[in-house]
């Protein structure tokens, strides 16, 4: 250590005790340099200069490619297939319209989502209306306009029937089912249960009504399903139910909706192996589903009936890797246990899914210094605002940028407006141009919905005036 002339990279001096049982210098070694100076072909520096930090960047090309590949996987195997774009996954208008331009219908689950789809210009006949809460006013509109309604519970079925009577219509309904596939925990809170007979009871009600017609069956077995055989079992159970229905009642089922839930290349915190090893390719899902569906509908071909239309509502698998989040380091720390920490200008307020997923984190320039375990915190004054509890990164300094990916699913819809403005969301067009598709918030957006009663219009009103108001009884005296 006598070589005093050698230049050193500055870092506060630090000593770290070894803890036995967790020592492996290469254990979580990341690759030599995984920095990433551009996202979707556009320079990070340029993007931040134009649109500020933090910033969501969306790729039109990636969305279209993902959607085409997924649809092709099903069409090749089954034929008549409709993709319903699950609005709740990402309902930024431009994202929805890319999906619609590719032929996807809108799959909506609330009055707001229904109104949004209509406002974007989606015809009601291409809206799948799902979800447990459909208030009367929106059901009336959806029925009048001819949307495809998926029924969740008996009260809703009765409401639909009474609206149908009022409008003097026969309404085609799709029944949402739940059942045990043996692979995933059944989501028994949605739809009608097959094993308990609820589903049969509902079909009886529909059969007895002169204003209802059952035309489809729907179920959704869960989210981030890593086992394609779960879908095969789902389809088998649905087809069996359909066959019983068609032989006992005068129904003709023209729609089988298998919901979504295909996994994306994201690392769920509870899964040990990395996503590239556990997430099946889309073809494996399509294979399992279409093989089971072709088998289960064999009987219809024998009696000369057409095959039902297959609807899938894949959200995450289409959009997740088509969006990244760029953010900036606002400060760094050493935690008491010796780990490095950085505070970022984006937290779980923007990346809500950081609670369940370990998103990939890339630096944006090659950096010197040893890679070490680092904690990434968001900007919120909330202890749970952690973007990554543990990630191997080179030393970070204020002003450095990080890219989180994939973030396209459920963040632009579940993000929350807590103490911070939400940032710009931009789209990289197919030709490489960039434009804002959702403006960042500012004070006027935040205060737009507030209303101040007259007597609260001033935060610190003139005290003598206040005294007069108290004496005259305009304001109650505090007890």
């Amino acid at each position, binding site marked *: *250590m006598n070589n*005093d002339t050698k230049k*050193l990279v500055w870092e506060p*001096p*630090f*000593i*770290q005790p070894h803890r036995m049982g967790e020592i492996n210098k290469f254990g979580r070694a990341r690759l030599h340099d995984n920095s990433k100076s551009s996202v979707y072909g556009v320079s990070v520096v340029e993007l931040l200069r134009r649109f500020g930090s933090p910033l969501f960047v969306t790729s039109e090309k990636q969305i279209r490619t993902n959607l085409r590949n997924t649809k092709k996987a099903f069409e090749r195997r089954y034929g008549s297939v409709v993709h319903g774009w699950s609005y709740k996954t990402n309902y930024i208008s431009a994202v929805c319209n890319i999906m619609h331009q590719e032929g996807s219908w809108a799959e909506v689950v609330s009055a707001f989502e229904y109104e949004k789809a209509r406002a974007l210009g989606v015809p009601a006949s291409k809206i799948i209306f799902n979800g447990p809460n459909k208030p009367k006013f929106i059901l009336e509109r959806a029925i009048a306009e001819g949307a495809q309604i998926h029924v969740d519970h008996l009260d809703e079925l009765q409401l639909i029937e009474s609206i149908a009577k009022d409008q003097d219509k026969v309404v085609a309904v799709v029944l949402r089912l739940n059942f045990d596939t043996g692979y995933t925990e059944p989501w028994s809170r949605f739809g009608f249960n097959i094993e308990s007979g609820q589903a049969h009871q509902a079909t009886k009600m529909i059969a007895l009504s002169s204003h209802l017609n059952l035309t489809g069956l729907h179920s959704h077995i869960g989210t981030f399903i890593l086992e394609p055989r779960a879908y095969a079992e789902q389809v088998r159970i649905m087809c069996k139910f359909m066959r019983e229905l068609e032989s006992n009642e005068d129904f003709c089922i023209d729609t089988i909706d298998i919901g979504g839930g295909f996994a994306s290349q994201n690392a769920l915190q509870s899964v040990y192996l990395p996503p590239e090893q556990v997430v099946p390719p889309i073809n494996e899902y399509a294979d399992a589903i279409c093989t089971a569906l072709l088998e289960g509908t064999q009987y219809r071909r024998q009696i000369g009936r057409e095959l039902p239309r297959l609807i899938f509502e894949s959200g995450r698998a289409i959009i997740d890797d088509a969006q990244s989040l760029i953010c900036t380091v606002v400060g760094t720390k050493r935690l008491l246990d010796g780990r490095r920490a950085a505070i970022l200008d984006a937290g779980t307020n923007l990346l809500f899914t950081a609670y369940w997923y370990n998103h990939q984190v890339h630096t944006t320039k090659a950096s010197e210094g040893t890679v070490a375990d680092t904690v990434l915190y968001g900007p919120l004054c909330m202890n749970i605002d952690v973007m990554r509890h543990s990630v191997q990164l080179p030393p970070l300094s204020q002003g450095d940028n990080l890219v989180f990916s994939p973030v396209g699913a459920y963040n632009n819809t579940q993000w929350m407006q807590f103490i911070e403005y939400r940032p710009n969301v931009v789209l990289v067009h197919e030709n490489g141009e960039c434009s804002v598709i959702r403006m960042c918030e500012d004070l006027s957006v935040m205060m737009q919905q507030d209303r101040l009663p007259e007597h609260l219009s001033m935060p610190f009103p003139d005290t003598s005036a206040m005294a007069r108001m108290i004496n005259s009884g305009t304001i109650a005296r505090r007890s």
Partner: protein
Amino acid sequence: MEELLSRTGGKVPSRERLSQLAVSETGFIFDPQTGQSFSVNPTGLVVLDLLKRGSTLDVASSSLADRCGTPAEIASSSVEAFILQLGRYL
């Protein structure tokens, strides 16, 4: 270092204690008194080496500031924090 002790009230290791440590060029440190081992980062290694060889706090700080091209005040407050950290472990 005694001055640091009276100012912060923290535990500051004596020079004798520091000289017991087996310090290798790779930043591996072994404390023969407790059997505990540590890793020290390159700047910490420079400071520890200087202190073991008898440098004062001020000399260690300024020589670290020189080697890294860091403002003297930042180096000196970081070195103090480092010594207090050593005090917690030794």
